């Protein structure tokens, strides 16, 4: 069975947007700063609604923020 993992570019996108702080992003999205930190560290995968809100804040499609990566049983990347 393949294992999936959600990766994200939130940290890079924040810095691309004139170094937006985690607190600013959290306020725009409607979550706590701790949740933004957890998302950036891949410790939390947000709900679809929050994912769309993050993408909207950065003005990019969802796929530009979040990617679903899978690894096959042989350990190969099967994205």
């Amino acid at each position, binding site marked *: 069975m393949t294992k999936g993992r959600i990766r994200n570019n939130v940290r890079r996108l924040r810095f691309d947007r004139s170094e937006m702080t985690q607190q600013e992003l959290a306020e725009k999205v409607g979550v706590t*700063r701790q949740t933004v930190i957890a998302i950036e560290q*891949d410790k*939390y995968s947000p709900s679809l609604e929050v994912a769309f809100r993050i993408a909207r804040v950065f003005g990019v499609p969802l796929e530009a923020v979040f990617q679903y990566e899978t690894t096959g049983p042989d350990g190969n990347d099967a994205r």
Partner: protein
Amino acid sequence: MDLSYQEKSILGSLLAMVVVYGYYFAAVLRDAGRPEFDGGSLTRLILAVIAIIVIEIVYHIVLALESKPEPKDERDILIECKAYRNAYFLLATGAFLVIACVIMATLAREAAPTRIIVTPFITVNLVLLFMVLAELMKFLTQLFYYRQGLR
């Protein structure tokens, strides 16, 4: 260690419960031979509950002054749900154990004279112990997921 408002809140509640109920159950152990859950036992329990409420109120006032309170978001609620699930399993296990304990003690008493006596005092405090353990399990699960993350 950088703790969020929620983590500080949970940690305070956890410590308050450990201290107050630790003291309460130490007193219960000393009086384990009591047959009934009488007025004195009830007073001690009420005092423990009042102590918890007072400590929680004072602690959360201080915490609110020291760090800005944050409303719960979806991650906090998800972590809380997982914590309640673990607490529920512990509480349900405890309830079955207390029921089994009372039934077995009754059967043993009917079969032969025995020293195994489950008094109302022990029964009430066993139920209370599992309620407290379930609450502690909830706090510990929350702290675990806040540190380890949800994946």
